[in-house]
């Protein structure tokens, strides 16, 4: 029988497209010939909406972009606005932001670990990872009352100070997480099935990764040390000693290892920030109605999923004239086609999982 190439529609209602993503797959039997992501099912017109809100009103809406790492969006947007308005953030506030942002990275990577393992069929890992994530979310709950859309960072600083009980609680959680990661790694790292499903799968060479504009752990798994926290430090990241974990092959397994190592590095950074927490204010004095003189800035941060950039243009009123977001998931998703070609259909879910996308950020 002659095998014919046919299209397979994956999503927008599919258990492992991580939201309302639709993939149009061209397959020959089970070999993938091409992947075309179809977007827009979660489009809420965020960027346009922001033009009708004041600078401060935009912040809680950024939570709804990458809702797995809501706080990183807050940070990216607030840093851009502060740069535009020339607001000096006190040192303590910068440290508090680092603590929160790294905890958010922990939560985001742990959620990714669970989802990705579940896509490959290791069901238990999902629950183990989420138990650890739960611990981190409890910290956020104690910090500001919210767990998912945290809205913990405000223009000029943070929403609250880190008090002593919370600091000791954070330390306790940080001690527990490596133990839980050990459990997961014992299940996966040297598991033959896991390695067969990930090693050499979804490979992308460093040059191609740059062409696609891949950022974040996906890029670092190719062996390129490109981390905004090191290369263009913001929010006092240059005060802390940490490594940028790198992979060599740029395959799913390396992305997995890089993210696990980043979790350990985040724990290191939070520990240092808590040790060196300076005195002072946790937020700068910012006028209630913030009016910014005409200008335009672009600011990038290292979000858990990659480089997150905000372009903010002001026109002298209390509302931004234009806010443009460069979301890492959107750009990383472009590389999916390149990574999937020639792989089997089963691997598409694994590769998609390894990219760590969030539809809230892609469709905006």
């Amino acid at each position, binding site marked *: 029988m002659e095998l014919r190439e*046919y299209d*397979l*529609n994956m999503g927008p209602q*599919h*258990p*492992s497209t991580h939201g309302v993503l639709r993939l149009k797959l061209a397959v020959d039997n*089970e070999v993938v010939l091409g992947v075309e992501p179809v977007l827009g099912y979660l489009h809420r017109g965020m960027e346009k909406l922001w033009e009708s809100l004041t600078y401060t009103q935009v912040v809680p809406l950024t939570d709804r972009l990458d809702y797995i790492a809501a706080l990183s969006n807050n940070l990216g947007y607030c840093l851009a606005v502060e740069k535009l308005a020339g607001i000096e953030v006190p040192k303590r506030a910068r440290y508090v932001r680092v603590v929160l942002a790294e905890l958010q990275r922990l939560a985001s990577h742990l959620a990714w670990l669970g989802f990705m*393992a*579940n*896509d*490959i*069929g*290791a*069901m*238990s890992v*999902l*629950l*183990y990872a989420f*138990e650890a994530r739960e611990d981190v979310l409890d910290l956020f709950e104690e910090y500001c009352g919210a767990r998912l859309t945290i809205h913990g960072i405000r223009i000029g600083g943070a929403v609250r100070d880190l008090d002593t009980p919370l600091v000791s609680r954070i330390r306790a959680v940080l001690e527990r997480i490596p133990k839980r990661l050990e459990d997961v790694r014992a*299940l*996966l790292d040297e*598991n033959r*099935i*896991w390695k*067969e*499903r990930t090693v050499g799968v979804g490979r992308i060479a460093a040059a191609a990764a740059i062409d696609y504009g891949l950022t974040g752990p996906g890029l670092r798994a190719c062996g390129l040390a490109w981390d905004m926290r090191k290369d263009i430090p913001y929010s006092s990241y240059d005060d802390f000693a940490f490594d940028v974990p790198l992979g060599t092959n740029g395959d799913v397994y390396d992305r997995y290892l890089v993210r696990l190592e980043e979790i350990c590095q985040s724990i290191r950074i939070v520990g240092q920030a808590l040790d060196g927490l300076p005195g002072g204010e946790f937020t700068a004095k910012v006028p209630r109605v913030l009016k910014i003189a005409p200008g335009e800035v672009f600011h990038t941060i290292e979000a858990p999923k990659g480089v997150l950039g905000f372009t903010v243009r002001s026109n002298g009123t209390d509302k931004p004239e234009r806010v443009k977001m460069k979301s890492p998931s959107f750009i990383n998703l472009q590389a999916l086609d390149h990574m999937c070609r020639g792989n*089997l*259909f*089963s*691997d*598409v*879910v694994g590769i998609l999982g390894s990219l760590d996308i969030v539809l809230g950020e892609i469709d905006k």
Partner: protein
Amino acid sequence: MTPFVADVLIPVGKIVAVILYPMVMVVVMIWLERRVVALMQLRLGPNRVGFQGLAQPVADAVKLFFKEDIRQRQADKLLFGISPVLVMASSLLAFCFLPLGEPIRIGTYTLTLWIAESPVGLLIVLGLSSISVFGVIFGGWAANSKYPLMGALRSVVQVLSYEIPLGLTVLTVAFAARSMDLVEIVRRQEASGVWYGFLMPVSFVVFWISAVAETNRAPFDLPEAESELVAGYHTEYSGMKFAYFYMAEYAHMVLVSSLVVILFFGGWLAPFPSVKALDFLDVVPGFVWYLVKLMFFLYLYVWIRATFPRYRFDSLIRLVWKWLIPLALVNLLVVVLVRYLL
């Protein structure tokens, strides 16, 4: 005992029992799976309906019974309807041949704990369990949709491939017992004093791996890999038809685990027959021993599922053709030689 009881009541009772028994085991297995996996994953699992959630599968079945039976316009009506029945019936039918325990003497009458004893019982059971493949491929084809078709294709390739090592290891048991009669195989194990699982560990291991693959269970659950194929061959099914597929899968697991117990672990026999100090174990009825062993293997299914990621299709097929089949062939050769020389 009156002829009426012996010729009518007991056979009818057995027929009812052979349908009820797999159903009860299916309920227990679904409960065991959900509860044990939940506990392994730091969850609670169903614990509300009945004692410790035992009635949850029953509640689920009742719910499915009242669900709408969706029939796609593009589906092949006949095949779509037949396949769940085919899958279910072939699994249930095989239970007729399974000896569940020692025959019970009531006066002059001997009550056997099986419905049919056949000199080729082993072949019949294997044949019946293979018929369920037809149900799967009919179901996947009849739905006239891409995901079920892919699931069905995967399933057929997988089951047919794993049937070979399964058959080869079953042959070793047949050679060792010089019989294909399931009752006779247990009796031989009783006579020789050692269970075939310990006598031929390679056979057991190959059989067990193939059995897990044959029942499409994790880590070989590709035909219904939910993260890839949504639900595999029964994606388009709903209501009671879906419940049939679902229950048949569990019935198949019970069937295969029973086979492992009968072929390799002495069926209803009590352990350690040669140790005098453990003679009191004989007090426990054979059926209970059988159940204990069966539960162990069912538990093993659940344990494996909670631990391993899923195989990819190519490595799954590589595993069987490059490793299991050669291993089973060599194993068969060794067993035959040893049996011939002894």
